[in-house]
């Protein structure tokens, strides 16, 4: 084989630059990753993204193959709506996710339903729809990586990601 010298052309890469004029692209709470349970939130500025993530709660969880909001999810979203009403500079992208039990395309559709359920609830609580985008990642961005329900339950989520909000 070695004598054949097959040229394996490394392939040029496609355009990379993401447009950054869009406020939704200033991802302040780390996309699918950050946030979660509030630890030591006492000192946080209530107008800060960190407060939104940790004290208000930036995510809601779903039952298997469901996109309906539990009472706990509704309570979290009420808090999000209040925070967004007080901090009107922020726009959000709600990311919908699924656990790994399911086919790829179906989970994209399911994540979209979850994100949209959260969006509709925020709108019902007075947040302008123009401030809320949704995107589904299906099963592509799990937070927890074990293959049982303790992880799956945390991966079936809709995460409200803040962007914009240039004033404090």
């Amino acid at each position, binding site marked *: *084989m070695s004598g*054949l010298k097959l040229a394996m*052309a490394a392939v040029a890469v496609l355009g990379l630059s*993401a447009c950054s004029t869009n406020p939704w*692209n200033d991802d302040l709470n780390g996309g699918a990753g950050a946030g979660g349970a509030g630890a030591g939130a006492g000192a946080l500025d209530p107008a800060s993204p960190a407060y939104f993530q940790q004290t208000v709660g930036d995510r809601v969880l779903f039952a298997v193959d469901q996109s309906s909001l539990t009472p706990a999810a509704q309570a979290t979203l009420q808090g999000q709506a209040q925070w967004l009403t007080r901090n009107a500079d922020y726009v959000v992208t709600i990311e919908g996710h699924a656990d*790994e039990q399911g086919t790829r395309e179906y989970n*994209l559709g399911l994540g979209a*339903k979850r994100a949209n359920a959260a969006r509709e609830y925020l709108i019902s609580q007075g947040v302008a729809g123009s401030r809320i985008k949704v995107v589904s*990642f299906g099963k592509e961005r799990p937070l*927890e990586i074990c293959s049982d329900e303790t992880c799956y339950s945390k991966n079936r989520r809709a995460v409200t990601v803040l962007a914009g909000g240039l004033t404090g």
Partner: protein
Amino acid sequence: MKNFLAALLIGASALGNAGAAAAQDGPLRIEIDQGVIEPLPYAVPDFVPETAAASEYASQIARVIASDLSGTGLFREVPASAHISKVTGFDNPVKYADWKAVNAQALITGGVSVNGNRLTVRFRGYDVFAENELGSGLQFTGTTEGWRRMAHKVSDAIYSRITGESGYFDSRVVYVSESGPKNDRRKRLAIMDYDGANVQYLTNSASLVLAPRFSPTGDRVLYTSYESGFPQIHVLDVGKVQRQILSSGDGIMSFAPRFAPDGRTVVYSQTQGGNTDLFSMDIATGAKTRLTSAPSIETAPSFSPDGSQIVFESDRSGSQQLYVMPAGGGEARRISFGKGRYGTPVWSPRGDMVAFTKQNKGRFHIGVMRTDGSEERLLTASFLDEGPTWAPNGRVIMFTRESQGSTGRALLYSVDITGRNLKPVKTPDGASDPAWSPLQQ
């Protein structure tokens, strides 16, 4: 990009004197549908180098042919260590007795010559026990870079003559190459020969990419990219690595694209207001047509080879099931009725079957059924199998198998539609979402 599928013009021609039409129904025949128990023994001694630069190609080509044929599970190689005869000249008479003695029922011989970067491969197949040729000899000419393709073309010809089916070895697979841990998985598009050779990357891993699909002629690839932050459909010209975005509009998600057999229309899923439906788009004009209008999830569409129908999945009944509708939309007929959930249907290139992913009792299966849903047959079972794609001859299916747990990773596997010959497809990293090209021209 020069050694990509362009650059390689293979000319095929019948060898000079082999004029008479070969007997089509010679004794050497594998009927694939019977479910072969005992693979057919064959020998493929190193091809004969006919110029000085040809010697390495001559042995490597024979090895690729052996890998192709034995890899089907239908053939078993009689190793060189058992050979009695040496083939020293392509046109020398075959010593049938020597090949009978080692029970090689088929024999493949060849000659290779190199002139500059031009490679010429001649071959003949023999039915050893009938003492005659398997069809007429053939000659392929191409670039030296394309030597593996010429080996695959020999394999396709031999396979076809012995099974009566068209081959699938001179084909490519586009897939998603995966690296990194499960919670930080990097994905990029890659393309390779069907056997895992000649891997090349088509995108970098800056943006999540999913589910590439070949055009009917294999020159373009549709896929879903998150480059904009939202899933959108891109078309990539494989030869030029040029890309076009099929926009659905700002903030509208579109995914699961697949070409129509005409190569001009794309059918795909689009999500608006949380609801996923099927649409088609004319690539040239961008004109869109809505195909379904239901509050449920409609996705994973795939055309019948004649372009008249689309098979897709929908959870309109309460769980994922398979449906067939006219290509322009309209009433859909459910075809899956077994236990569990059915998704990712793909119409076979012969038009007679649909391959699918089935979930039942916490397990995943790749299966096939008739296009009316009858004769369902599950080919695999594991923690997570999904996303079948058909070999161009409709005899073999490749799919993604993901292993369980925190160290789980995705790899490609292939299996015959008989359920036999399940095996991994070698890739440099993790791999998912394979799509098999048509046979190359």
